């Protein structure tokens, strides 16, 4: 390593230098110099889906599962499952969701988090199902921004090679 890394007065040049050599000096308007280094960090989590597991195992089998409050007087049905009812606190039971619904709202993301930038543009949609009290957030494929609208009928597709992620299901315009 050199004794002194190169000096820059623009922060974006510092960022570029970090990609090249891992160290740079930033000199600000008051000529204060700060040493900046690249400091990588990565981690693989041991992530249990715990009580949400049946939803993800369902996707791998081509099934869309919501949950429904077990208390007959409540019976609130969730398109995105939860194992206890948010309304009354009773346990829920698993139920099959319809595989077709309607777009409740939508957007096309032209940017995204770093992890998803390479997938842009992609569509997100909140889907509503008849007789179900809550919604499901999904990717909407096989259609472009100019074709999307609130109320659009859509249906589920499942990944034949499941990754055990919520992206194992996506929706497409209903044919």
């Amino acid at each position, binding site marked *: 390593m050199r004794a002194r890394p190169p000096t820059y007065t623009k922060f974006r040049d510092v960022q570029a230098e970090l990609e090249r050599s891992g160290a740079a000096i930033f000199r600000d308007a008051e000529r204060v110099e700060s040493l900046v280094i690249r400091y990588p960090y990565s981690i693989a989590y041991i992530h249990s889906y715990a009580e949400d597991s049946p939803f993800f195992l369902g996707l791998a089998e081509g099934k869309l599962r919501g949950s429904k409050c077990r208390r007959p007087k409540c019976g609130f049905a969730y398109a995105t499952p939860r194992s206890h009812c948010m309304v009354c606190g009773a346990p829920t039971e698993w139920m099959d969701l319809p595989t077709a619904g309607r777009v409740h709202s939508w957007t096309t993301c032209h940017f995204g988090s*770093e992890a998803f930038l390479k997938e842009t543009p992609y569509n997100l949609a*909140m889907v509503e199902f008849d007789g179900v009290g809550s919604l499901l957030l999904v990717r909407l494929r096989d259609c472009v921004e100019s074709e999307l609208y609130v109320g659009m009928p859509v249906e589920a597709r499942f990944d034949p090679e499941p990754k055990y992620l919520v992206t194992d299901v996506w929706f497409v315009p209903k044919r």
Partner: protein
Amino acid sequence: MVTGGVTKFAKAHPSMDFRLMVKRAYDYALKGIPNLTKDRIDGTRISYFSDHFSRQLKAASMVQDYLGMNPKGSVRIEWGGATGGECFQAAYEAVASGRMDVCLGAGYETMSRVATWKGNEFIALASYTNFDFPLGGFYTGYYALMVVRHIYEYLRLRKFAGVKDEREAQRLAIAEGSRIMSLVSVKNHRNALHNPYAQYPKRLTVDVVLRSEMISYPLTREQICTMSDGAACVVLCTEERAREFTDRPVRVIGVGTGTDTMRLADRPFGKVPLLPHERASDYEDLPYPGIHSFRAGRAAGIEAYRMAGITHPNTELDFIELHDAYASSEIQTYEDLGLCRYGEGYGFVERGDPFLKGIDYGFPTPRAGAIPVNPSGGLIACGHPVGATGLMQGVFAFWQLQGAIAQHFGDPTLQIANARRGAIHSHAGTGSAVTVSILERGF
């Protein structure tokens, strides 16, 4: 409240780490008050949002340490995007409970430590990591989903109710909503031209806002706040102490908080919790909150207004510093806070109510000055270093109520004449938590 300080918010402050940024804001706050020295401060509440950005756990301890506050009591505050607003209230509670006579609330964020899109990823981790994040976790995407529905409920189903072709009606409604959101962006950037602390002051036109890069349809770059480095602090104390420190204190007369589900998908379709000036018949067919409104903001408003004795917010408040992370959420929040009825947010902007009087925005604002929102420029123009943002609002509101904007900004333009009472509003997640605090001139 007896004083406050803010660093200039910037894309990056590589020559100051978070400790020095807070120290600068703190020194500024104490500068004008000779009686207020470190030994008079009983303890602190210190806020920052993300351990990911810091890559330093217990970072609040390092702030406490750098300010030389040990061994006084301190707690770190984190509440998503509302972290700064919650820190303000935590400091308030430390004093109101009798635990402290004088409490420092200080906060910061250093978001420049990762590239912008990595930063978006960190922020998106404040959505449900089982069901939401892996879909492309992106907060602008979530807010776009919300505003598309807001536009559907209030423009498609009302203003464009007569258009028969469904897709055409929705396109027209989105174009109209986008135009009106752009007016908000123009307002906040324009106001910030007179605020030396702001990160992105500029004179924009509706066309420039609409033509700026599309980030997540229909939200464009100029309708969205950016990442920032910055720090802010406030000093709150008992009324007795306040009189020792200044003859121009500001009283905190109301605090409120509200919450909602972490997942947007779980937002129920129920009834609107009413403010005193509203009737159930105003909202007979409105499914609420759905994904189009912020029930947490409504709950926080109800609590804060009740405590402050406010029954008609748009006539009893002189201004609001509102959490405009998106131009869309500023419009949604007008309605949550009862500045207008649900569904009237777009018309409220068009009539000019939230604009400042005496500033030329490049289009007519007939009712300008009715209830100025974000006179400082808000998050869109000032920046959003999360842990500092809500405290920054507290400082700007404090200076407004003291009539001291000219003194601190070096420019009197943004001073609202005879501002007597104002609100600050801090907002987290997709609306999963909101704080509202009401400040009143105490002299």
